[in-house]
């Protein structure tokens, strides 16, 4: 069965229309049946076509009458609250489509600006950006700075609490063995805060290249490029 995209318009070719009608009618009745079974609910369908003087129904003429009787017993307001026809239904779908479109465009724009940001960090100039792009770029940079700041803070906190916990454990160990402990790790207390952090980070990221050599840093740009990620004076 081919999956061609069908144009949403009346099929003018008679035989094509009749063939489509037969297939889709069958599929539709099947879907009503499935809905009823899976969810354990009452449902009915009535279909009038130019191909048949009698309406095609699901589940059966009697079944339809039963469901309609139930329907008519409900207050008018309840009946019409969720009632739609082609026009209202299509309007609903258009509205939903527009919402999704708006969201997708927004997401795409964020992705696009993020790419611009990454590229700008390699030294690519800002001349090609218009004022709207620049404003969005500024916003994205701020968002990232916020997240980085949060992350740095949380890493610092972790390092501190780990340090405290390890120091307590080491102290406990010392007391237990009467002071003679084979310390494999350097004593925490003697480290200063930055060293401690670094040590902790090394522990946590054993595979991270600590040095600045290798293929990590690679982006060529000249001295006068102030956006560059690897300014010349940086290496210790």
């Amino acid at each position: 069965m081919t999956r061609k995209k069908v144009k949403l318009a009346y099929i003018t070719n008679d035989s094509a229309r009749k063939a489509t009608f037969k297939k889709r009618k069958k599929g539709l009745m099947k879907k009503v049946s499935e809905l009823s079974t899976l969810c354990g609910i009452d449902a009915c369908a009535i279909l009038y076509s130019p191909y048949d003087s009698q309406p095609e129904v699901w589940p059966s003429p009697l079944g339809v009458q039963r469901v309609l009787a139930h329907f008519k017993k409900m207050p008018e307001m309840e009946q019409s609250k969720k009632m739609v026809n082609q026009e209202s239904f299509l309007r609903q779908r258009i509205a939903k489509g527009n919402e999704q479109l708006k969201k997708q465009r927004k997401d795409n724009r964020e992705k696009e600006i993020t790419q611009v940001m990454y590229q700008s960090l390699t030294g690519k100039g800002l001349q090609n950006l218009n004022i709207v792009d620049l404003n969005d770029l500024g916003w994205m940079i701020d968002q990232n700075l916020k997240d980085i700041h949060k992350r740095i803070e949380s890493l610092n906190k972790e390092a501190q609490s780990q340090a405290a916990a390890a120091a307590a454990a080491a102290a406990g160990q010392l007391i237990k063995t009467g002071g003679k402990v084979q310390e494999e790790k350097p004593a925490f207390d003697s480290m200063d805060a930055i060293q401690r952090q670094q040590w902790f980070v090394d522990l946590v990221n054993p595979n991270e290249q600590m040095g600045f050599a290798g293929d990590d840093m690679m982006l060529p740009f000249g001295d006068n490029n102030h956006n560059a990620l690897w300014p010349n004076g940086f290496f210790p």
Partner: protein
Amino acid sequence: MATVRKSKGRQRVEMAKMTKESNLQVTFSKRRSGLFKKASELCTLCGVEIAIVVFSPGKKVYSFGHPCVESIIDRFLTRNPLPNSSALQLFEAHRSANVRDLNLQLTQVLNQLEIEKKRGEALTQMKKASQAQCWWAASIEELSFERLELLKVSLENLKKNVALQVDKLMIEASNPATFFPSNSVGAVVPYDSQVAGFGPRSYDFGYGGGRLF
């Protein structure tokens, strides 16, 4: 590298009442929506008239009808053939024209949505490519302490440069004449908005073919 699956994809469903109540409501919602969509398409494509009435698990009733639910129900229950007045026909003709327009609008929106989705996928691919090439494209959770600090400094720097560029453009926009000196016969070189950066919105990544570097 294993792909992370967001959902399980299409699974075969057993044709019996669903056991999980939570799933039941969701299933009803989705399937009812799909059912009405199919009914709507059938009416458009084949010019048929239809009414569908369904009761939700929460005892609410949903119905779809073309031309309208009530007329179809009445027609079925009374078994009277439809009156065929010219007024009615005119009314129906207007309604059909409306529906045609709405279908066109819907088609347009859905097409645009598909285009944007594809664009989104392409952008995701670009992001993956960047991540393979530059460490600063990785998510913040994955970066080491040192790299975070580095990145912070670079971004702060970039922010300053962006602000400078914005100022530059604002000045150029308000004073075009100062940037375009007149030639020898006194005519002013025309102001080119492209040059000042007020060009098309979409950023050209400039490396051709969407490559990053």
